[in-house]
């Protein structure tokens, strides 16, 4: 292949990502001429489903958007509606919601770190092939994920598409003993998570650093899950109600998912790396130590290292869950009642893959007039394309098959939940004579 030859990297169905998508990269000579991350799942109809429904249905309807992060959807929904209706939740409910989130993070991060992402670094096509040589690793992953499942099952009423979260609290809250029963599993999970940090830190990472705008929630006292101001490393510091003043969604022809940009600046980065970089000081001491021992100090600008950051967040989630279990006392009432009024409410929570924005406008009977949902993957979509533009340029001399594999790996660093953003990735690299 000469330097002037052009080629196309094409992945028709991206593997080991949640949902369906494809990637097209056109190389002209040594220049990357075009990058399109295509999401071809039909546009999501959830925002339209919500119109004319009572707000109490929003958490259960939106939780159906994603089988991996239903809790984040429920949490953004209840917080946004509570904000609209000025509902103050009890401290016990606040604790339970954070615990609920920890369960989801443990499930989701374990699935991604071990089953979806690790095979890339160890040179296996998938987790099954990896399991043949790394049986103990996969066994550990299944057990770790199960700890997360137990939390979600207890608080959600069932493992998938939980049904207990309500505006004002929960339909049912657990007893102290029920939470205490989780402690032994979580102590094991904490140890396993610290081992996960060490294990992932020993993987080989490509040398690929970018100057990202990281966007995440920031809270004065805690590592963010349910609340905080929205902040970035480029000076953004806003109330979540101002989100739409600073971010906009653009329709692009090649994708069914909308592209989000920071107004006036462009693509940005949400998810574990953004949270870690903006909230390192809020991690519990032992999680911070695990990160530093693994060679991680903010700002981490290499997206491939996000696998180690996810492992650090596993440590955090276990520590936080154990703290909550110790502190929890069941509330007198499982939820506080809300009073209807005409209002608009917005909320952002930290889904495993990054910030998830919900806005609801309600009428005097509590019916939803309009709803807006911006999932983390659609916010990262443009950033993924920007990464690929840079990364593909480093790969022009590589044989097509290897370049394609490398590009898929770069996409998986973001743990894209394409089913959330609208749905496997297909990759195309087009080489043309320059």
């Amino acid at each position, binding site marked *: 292949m000469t330097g002037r030859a052009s080629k196309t990297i094409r992945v028709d*169905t991206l593997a*080991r*990502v*949640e*949902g*369906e998508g494809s990637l097209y990269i056109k190389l002209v000579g040594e220049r990357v001429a075009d990058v399109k991350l295509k999401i071809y*799942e*039909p546009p*999501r*109809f959830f925002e339209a489903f919500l119109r004319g429904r009572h707000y109490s249905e929003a958490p259960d309807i939106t939780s*159906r958007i*994603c*089988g*991996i992060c239903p809790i984040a959807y429920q949490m953004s929904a209840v917080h946004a509606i509570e904000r609209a209706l000025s509902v103050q939740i009890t401290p016990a409910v606040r604790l339970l919601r954070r615990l609920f989130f920890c369960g989801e993070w443990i499930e989701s991060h374990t*699935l991604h770190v071990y*089953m*979806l992402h690790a095979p890339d670094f160890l040179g296996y096509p*998938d*987790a*099954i092939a990896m*399991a*043949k040589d790394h*049986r103990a690793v*996969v*066994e550990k*992953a*299944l057990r770790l*994920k*199960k700890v997360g*499942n137990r939390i979600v099952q207890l608080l959600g009423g069932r*493992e*998938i*598409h939980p049904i207990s979260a309500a505006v004002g609290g929960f339909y049912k809250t657990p007893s102290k003993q029920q939470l205490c029963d989780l402690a032994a599993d979580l102590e094991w999970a904490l140890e396993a998570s610290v081992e996960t940090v060490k294990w992932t830190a020993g993987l080989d990472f490509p040398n690929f650093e970018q100057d990202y705008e990281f966007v995440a929630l920031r809270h004065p006292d805690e590592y963010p899950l349910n609340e905080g101001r929205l902040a970035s490393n480029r000076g953004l510091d806003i109330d979540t109600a101002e989100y739409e003043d600073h971010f906009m969604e653009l329709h692009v022809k090649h994708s069914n998912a909308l592209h989000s940009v920071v107004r006036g600046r462009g693509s940005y980065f949400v998810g574990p790396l953004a949270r870690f970089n903006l909230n390192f000081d809020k991690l519990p001491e032992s999680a911070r130590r695990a990160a530093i021992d693994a060679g991680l100090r903010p700002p981490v600008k290499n997206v491939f290292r996000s696998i180690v950051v996810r492992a650090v967040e596993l440590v955090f989630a276990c520590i936080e869950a154990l703290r909550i279990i110790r502190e929890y006392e069941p509330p007198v009432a499982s939820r506080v009642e809300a009073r209807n009024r005409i209002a608009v409410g917005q909320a952002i929570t930290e889904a495993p893959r990054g910030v998830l924005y919900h806005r609801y406008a309600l009428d005097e009977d509590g019916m939803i007039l309009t709803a807006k949902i911006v999932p983390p993957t659609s916010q990262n979509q443009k950033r993924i394309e920007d990464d690929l533009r840079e990364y593909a340029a480093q790969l022009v001399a590589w044989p097509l098959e290897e370049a394609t594999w490398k590009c898929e790996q770069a996409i998986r660093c973001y743990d894209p939940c394409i*089913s959330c953003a609208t*749905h*496997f990735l297909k990759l195309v690299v087009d080489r043309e004579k320059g």
Partner: protein
Amino acid sequence: MVIIGCGNRQRSDDAAGILVAEKLRKLGIKAEICTRGCAELIEVWTGAKDVIVVDAVVSGAPVGTIRAWNGREAPLSVRTPPSTHGLGVAEAIELARVLDRLPSRLQVYGIEGQRFELGAELSPEVIAAIDEVAGKIVGDVRAERTPLTG
């Protein structure tokens, strides 16, 4: 005997396995529903000796075709539909095989699907196949055995 219906209720024909499980429940037969793929499936059948799994499949056969396999035999060549959960039923079976976590008897029923877009409407052929597979499983339960086919 543990009976597990897999799939995604929001994706048309992909709901087939779940609808079989629901039909069985209405008949008073205990059936599990699994919508989160691999890890969950292995978890659900842990400790069970006799397992039946039902899911929608895409093999190129006419829509509504029912196929039955002995899951313990050679690796599955038919892939389950593109799931939103990363790892599907075929992957769960193969992962369990590597980890020695396959039940001692594993019957898999696959219902050929056609449409997997968002929505609740199923192909009429799949609806008919759901009834037929539920009927077969009722027979399996009555006979207290898993008929290892294929």
